[in-house]
């Protein structure tokens, strides 16, 4: 009796400690994010001392009383760097939340926006917009809204197509098998990438625009892009967070979920929709950026465990951090202001990291 009480007591303490650790981790990540935003605004080819950077940021916030900052410096720090940092941050957070949700819903550690063809759909929508000239070159410069809209529409259309394909064998939409979903996703993804190649070979003049866009980059993006994307991201994140508890239940498996009284099919549809909104909006403004959605949730699971109420916010913060710093690398590695596509940086960082995870898992050392 006493022993049992002690175990329960220990379990409670364990739980409390885990929650404390999670809160601490979230606080640390949030502080790191704040510091990163300021630091990242100070880095780039235009010379700016930390003091000048800070003054420019304060001036933009209306908190700087002294002499006005050099206008060029203010544009560089606020309109160019801060805008990119904000966009990279919300994009990274969105991709990470979406990745966690896809992995939870599909109970597949390899799942992300690519698996269900959502990224492919967005990329196809954008390619089509570039090729048909609705978007032209002006879209990325913020003059037209057509490109992001087409990308988002493409993402949701791809999801609809995958769901439609999955139920082709009959049965209600709410009762889909995970394996079927993944298979349909891969088929749609592959088909879409073939279509993109087709578009590219049809019009050589657009190839560089399409390739540049698909590789993923924050170059030339401004606050207008963040403004375009955040409502969808917020909506998507809202849906996923609202159903975070259901994600936990879903990841136990179909039967358990039903035993616990969860309408698994419905819950899954909602979560897929939310995650697709998130990744569609992310792809819409920044192109296809891989590995964030895949790697970040894994990292967080290693540190904080699989509970989605902790996993989701921590993934969001870590995703934002990862993408902000990847973008800093992308824009500062090459001399004279030349840039790497940020998708290349995340893949270069994410690839080896993923190998490491696999190796640990292979040797039985990790929980991932």
């Amino acid at each position: 009796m006493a022993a049992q009480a002690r175990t329960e007591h220990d379990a409670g303490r364990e739980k409390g400690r885990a929650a404390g650790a999670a809160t601490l981790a979230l606080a640390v990540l949030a502080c790191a994010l704040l510091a990163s935003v300021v630091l990242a605004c100070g880095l780039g080819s235009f010379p700016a001392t930390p003091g000048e950077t800070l003054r420019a940021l304060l001036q933009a916030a209306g908190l700087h009383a002294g002499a006005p900052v050099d206008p060029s410096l203010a544009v560089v720090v606020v309109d160019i760097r801060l805008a990119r940092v904000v966009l990279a941050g919300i994009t990274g957070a969105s991709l990470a939340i979406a990745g966690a949700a896809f992995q939870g819903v599909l109970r597949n550690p390899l799942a992300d926006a690519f698996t269900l063809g959502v990224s492919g759909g967005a990329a196809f929508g954008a390619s089509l917009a570039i090729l048909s000239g609705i978007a032209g070159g002006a879209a990325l410069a913020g003059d037209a809204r057509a490109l992001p809209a087409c990308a988002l529409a493409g993402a949701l259309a791809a999801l609809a197509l995958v769901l439609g394909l999955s139920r082709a064998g009959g049965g209600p939409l709410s009762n889909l098998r995970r394996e079927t979903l993944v298979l349909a996703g891969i088929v749609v993804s592959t088909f879409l990438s073939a279509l993109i190649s087709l578009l590219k070979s049809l019009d050589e003049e657009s190839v560089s625009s399409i390739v540049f866009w698909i590789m993923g980059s924050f170059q030339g993006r401004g606050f207008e892009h963040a403004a375009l994307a955040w409502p969808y991201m917020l909506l998507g994140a809202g849906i996923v967070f609202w159903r975070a508890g259901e994600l936990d239940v879903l990841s136990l498996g179909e039967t358990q979920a039903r035993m616990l009284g969860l309408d698994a099919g419905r819950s899954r549809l909602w979560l897929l929709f939310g995650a697709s909104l998130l990744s569609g909006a992310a792809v819409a403004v920044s192109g296809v950026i891989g590995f964030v959605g895949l790697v970040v949730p894994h990292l967080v699971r290693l540190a904080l465990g699989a509970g989605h109420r902790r996993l989701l916010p921590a993934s969001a913060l870590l995703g934002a951090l990862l993408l902000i710093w990847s973008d800093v690398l992308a824009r500062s590695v090459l001399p004279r202001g030349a840039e790497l596509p940020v998708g290349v940086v995340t893949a270069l960082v994410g690839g080896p990291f993923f190998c490491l995870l696999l190796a640990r898992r292979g040797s039985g050392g990790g929980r991932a």
Partner: protein
Amino acid sequence: MLEGLGRADAIVARTDADRLPARIAKLPVIGTHMRPNEEAVLAQRPDLVLQMAGRKEASLPVEALRKRGVRVAVFRAESFAELFSVIRRVGTLTGSAPQAEDMVRGMEARLAALDARMARAKARPRVFYEVRSPNLLAAGQAGLVAEIIRRAGGVNCVEDAAKFAHLSEEEVIRLEPEAYIIQRGPMNPAPLPLGKRPRLRTIPAAASGRAWFVDEQKYARPGPQSVDAAEELAGLLHPELKPQEITPAKGAKHKDRK
């Protein structure tokens, strides 16, 4: 170029992007300049295939043509000196060497006149030449555009030694260009005017309004029109230095050539 040599009638086919002069627009297309189609070229039974050196993919089919016994000449013109030698060689290959010599002489004379005019320029503005945006690409120090800028009395503010330079908006702000040239054409189909790019609002070119669109075909494709490009740019950069003598003879001669 062949048009200028009076031999445009000898052209039997073109690439997809060649639409000038108007009379060749109706000719069969043998593919694009990046991926010419070997079979389509052979179908025209050409005596001579002319190509501007470009990417590797573009030269493979042409190499294959050479192996099949078709006469092939591949050119590179990254400066006016190279352009002149290309014109002379094309002249020789098409049996119009004297016309080619005339054309080169005329171009040299106009460039010399332009040089003399620009020697009087008090200041040489820092010029930024935008090849493509978004995914900003600028003209670097190599290539014909760089020489056009120099001949037109400007200084290319992009210091990259290559023909093209990738750079960020931040770098453009750091370079402080006094004139911003945006080429419009296949490489840059829908560029925004500088006035609609709020992040570049503080560069000197935006403040002074010295920003212009130019024709990619005229500036970036080496040919007789490259001298027109240099003269046009000189007029934009140095409106105070009017050409002293626009002799009718010269103008008429020019018209003949075109």
